[in-house]
């Protein structure tokens, strides 16, 4: 029911349009209304509409408006009565003739054929005209030269101007054999402007038989490379067209890769080592890189070329987009890591690609596990060079996942390297996760705090330029001083950040045996002496260097585990008491670092005992160690001399003959007090 209502309303509307159109002599309204009416309802108005159409068609024909005639032809074919009801056959044929030309000049082959069919009776006695129209009505057909000569072309007086005739060239057919492909491509290139050639060639590559694609691509690709160089020579800005075609061809024919490389060099030479300033250059490079990046080993070179690239502010978003596309096409973790390392190495040139790489982290083929596996087996320089920038810039959670994956698949060397990376990440967490009571006064103050807290040189005062910058950002002197105080407190462990403590707890057990800094932290956090001793034992297992023992002693000293320190030292003396070099270095270290007096004396005794057993003459280093040991040990007390016999009283003294009587004894001359050997006592 509702459908019937709608149909009835549509009919009413059509009738209203038709009436309105006839009243206003508006052909478009008349035809719109007419074709919507059922055939029975059209008949009463057909004659009126046909006359209106005839007038309009004649006018459009005189104006050469072929598109409008074509549109009217569509309606005339839909309702044949529009032409059939015209009063005279001549009028009828003239209208059809005009509509036919609309469909021939603004190509619509099916309607042209339909109108030609309606015109056949009128052409029965005009065989030449019929022949010409038949040739033109073929889809894509042109007028043969022999037929064209039959039409007398009027020559206008040149003083009135010349009309430029834009010939519609016949469409070059796609080749059907491999032998014909190069010639067809050359013909296509020669007969059309490059943008049309590029579009047609790309269409051929997409639609032709796969066997034909390689010869097609080879010729088209070389033509595109030539066009690119010509445009560069002519300082043409639009380099993207030939670059895209060359790239597409190279995907079908790998022998074009050297041409692509040449094109990359040619475009890159326009940059002259500076930032990208022209979008055309970037688009061209993007297309060429995308072709190269799919072809190992060129993919690595693309990374080499892309990463150091810089762009002006206006071009930076485009460079981001290009780098994303390129890295989406080559998500190999090795290339990703290489790119990141290169970016870090050249960071001073302010490359824009590095941060973008971090955003594409999840796009790496195989994910974090694959990247970790790759890095674990990469040269140490690669591992180190990749971990450093990642630790600085990656989201903390992802970075810790990567470190966990590396721990799982790496060996001892990797684990040792990880200790530094986790330490750096911990420092970052402690600064980024820290917020003072009451919050930061401003974002600038937070940035100031983070910069200070992560500063490697703890003792150096902040750079004056930095302070000037912070003040320029609106920070007051008090805010900067507060940030400095907080940074010092965090750096020296006076303020602790929960996230940092959690991370420390997760890694300490694993990293304490590998790294001195982690050992110091772990022993400091140890619950009791037994746990601290166990940590140091694990650290010293397999190590017997003086540095390791110094670290172990320092860790236990710092944690206040003096009995355990003494225990470790006694055990060391038992195990390595014969190693005079080790002992002497430990002694030197203990004296220089101001070690415990007990430690110094035990080591000095061990050195002297060892030297006594040594048959060979001492080396200079050992002589120095012996001197140091003697200085450290307390000097043995001299045995008391036997009591002297009492002197006889003065009066009873018998003087020999000629001897002078004794005078008052002169006071002893006080010599310069001997310089006391410095003794280092006390614990650090």
């Amino acid at each position, binding site marked *: 029911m509702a459908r019937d209502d709608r149909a009835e309303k549509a009919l009413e509307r059509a009738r209203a349009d038709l009436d309105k159109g006839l009243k206003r002599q508006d052909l478009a309204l008349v035809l719109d209304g007419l074709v919507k009416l059922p055939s029975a309802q059209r008949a009463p108005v057909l004659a009126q509409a046909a006359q209106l159409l005839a007038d309009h068609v004649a006018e459009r*024909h005189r104006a*050469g408006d*072929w598109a409008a005639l074509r549109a009217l032809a569509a309606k005339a074919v839909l309702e044949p009565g529009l032409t059939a009801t015209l009063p005279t056959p*001549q009028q009828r044929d*003239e209208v059809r*003739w005009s509509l036919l*030309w609309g469909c*021939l*000049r603004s190509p619509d082959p099916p309607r042209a054929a339909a109108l030609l069919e309606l*015109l056949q009776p*009128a052409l029965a*006695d*005009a065989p*030449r*005209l019929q022949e*010409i129209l038949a040739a033109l009505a073929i889809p894509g057909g*042109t*007028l*043969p*030269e*022999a*037929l*064209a*000569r*039959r*039409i*007398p*072309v*009027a020559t206008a007086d040149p003083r009135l101007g010349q009309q430029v*005739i*834009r*010939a*519609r*060239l016949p469409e070059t057919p796609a080749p059907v054999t491999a032998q014909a492909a190069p*010639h067809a491509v*050359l013909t296509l*290139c*020669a*007969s059309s402007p490059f943008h049309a050639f590029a579009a047609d060639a790309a269409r051929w590559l997409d639609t032709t038989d796969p066997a034909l694609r390689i010869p097609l691509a080879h010729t088209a690709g*070389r*033509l595109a*490379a*030539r066009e690119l*160089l010509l445009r*560069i*020579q002519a300082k043409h800005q639009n380099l993207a067209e030939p670059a895209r075609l060359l790239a597409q061809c190279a995907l079908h024919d790998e022998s074009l890769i050297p041409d692509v*490389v*040449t094109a*990359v*060099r*040619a475009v*890159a*030479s326009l940059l002259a080592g500076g930032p990208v300033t022209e979008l055309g250059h970037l688009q061209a490079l993007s297309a060429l890189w995308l072709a190269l990046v799919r072809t190992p080993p060129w993919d690595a*070179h693309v*990374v*080499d*070329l892309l990463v*150091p690239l810089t762009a002006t502010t206006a071009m930076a978003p485009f460079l981001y987009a290009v780098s994303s596309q390129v890295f989406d096409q080559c998500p190999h973790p090795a290339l990703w890591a*290489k790119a990141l390392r*290169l970016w870090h190495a050249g960071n001073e040139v302010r490359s824009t690609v590095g941060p973008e790489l971090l955003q594409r982290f999840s796009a790496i083929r195989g994910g974090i596990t694959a990247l970790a596996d790759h890095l674990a087996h990469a040269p140490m320089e690669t591992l180190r060079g990749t971990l450093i920038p990642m630790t600085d810039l990656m989201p903390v959670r992802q970075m810790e996942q990567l470190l966990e994956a590396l721990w799982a698949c790496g060996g001892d060397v990797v684990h040792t390297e990880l200790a530094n990376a986790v330490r750096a990440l911990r420092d970052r967490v402690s600064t980024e996760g820290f917020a003072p009571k009451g919050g930061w006064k401003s974002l600038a103050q937070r940035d100031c705090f983070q910069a200070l807290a992560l500063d490697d040189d703890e003792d150096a005062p902040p750079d004056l330029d930095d302070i000037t910058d912070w003040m320029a950002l609106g920070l007051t002197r008090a805010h900067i001083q507060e940030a400095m105080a907080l940074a010092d407190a965090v750096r020296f462990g006076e303020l602790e950040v929960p996230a940092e403590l959690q991370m420390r707890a997760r890694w300490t057990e694993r990293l304490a045996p590998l790294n001195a800094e982690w050992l110091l932290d772990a022993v400091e956090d140890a619950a009791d002496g037994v746990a601290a001793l166990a940590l140091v034992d694990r650290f010293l297992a397999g190590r017997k260097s003086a540095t390791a023992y110094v670290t172990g002693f320092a860790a236990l000293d710092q944690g206040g585990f003096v009995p355990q320190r003494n225990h470790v030292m006694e055990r060391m003396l038992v195990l390595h008491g014969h190693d005079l070099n080790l002992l002497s270095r430990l002694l030197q270290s203990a004296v220089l670092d101001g070690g415990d007096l007990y430690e110094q004396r035990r080591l000095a005794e061990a050195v002297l005992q060892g030297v006594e057993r040594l048959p060979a003459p001492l080396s200079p280093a050992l002589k120095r160690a012996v001197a140091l040991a003697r200085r450290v040990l307390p000097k043995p007390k001299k045995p008391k001399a036997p009591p002297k016999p009492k002197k006889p009283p003065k009066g009873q003294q018998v003087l020999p003959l000629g001897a002078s009587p004794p005078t008052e004894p002169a006071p002893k001359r006080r010599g310069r007090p001997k310089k006391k050997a410095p003794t280092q006592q006390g614990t650090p």
Partner: protein
Amino acid sequence: MSSPFSVLELQPTLDAAAVKRAYYKQLGLHPPHSDPEGFRILRAAYEALSAPGALAAAYLNAPFNLAPALAAYEETLGAALATARAEAAQTATRSAAGTAAVETLSAMTLQQARDTLDGAGVTPPSQ
């Protein structure tokens, strides 16, 4: 400062083995004991190309001579393209004549067209 490739007297390349060969060749000409300055320059150029990723970067930054590259393309494509252009020009001339004829015919009425082509006074063209 000259390109490392030019110091090694080598065309810009991405072939690391070629760089090494060129270095050893030049090393014979600039031995360190007799030409320390030449050796220093040579060594600096070699190291500039040997660091990871440096070869490609130097290749990228090496001066690119457009003329020989274009000449190579002209040598292989120039003649064939000229022939194709000549053929296309002939086709365009023919096509232009056809287009002019079509424009003339389409501007006529049916009656004019019949009179022009098949009228009583029209002699059939020689085939």
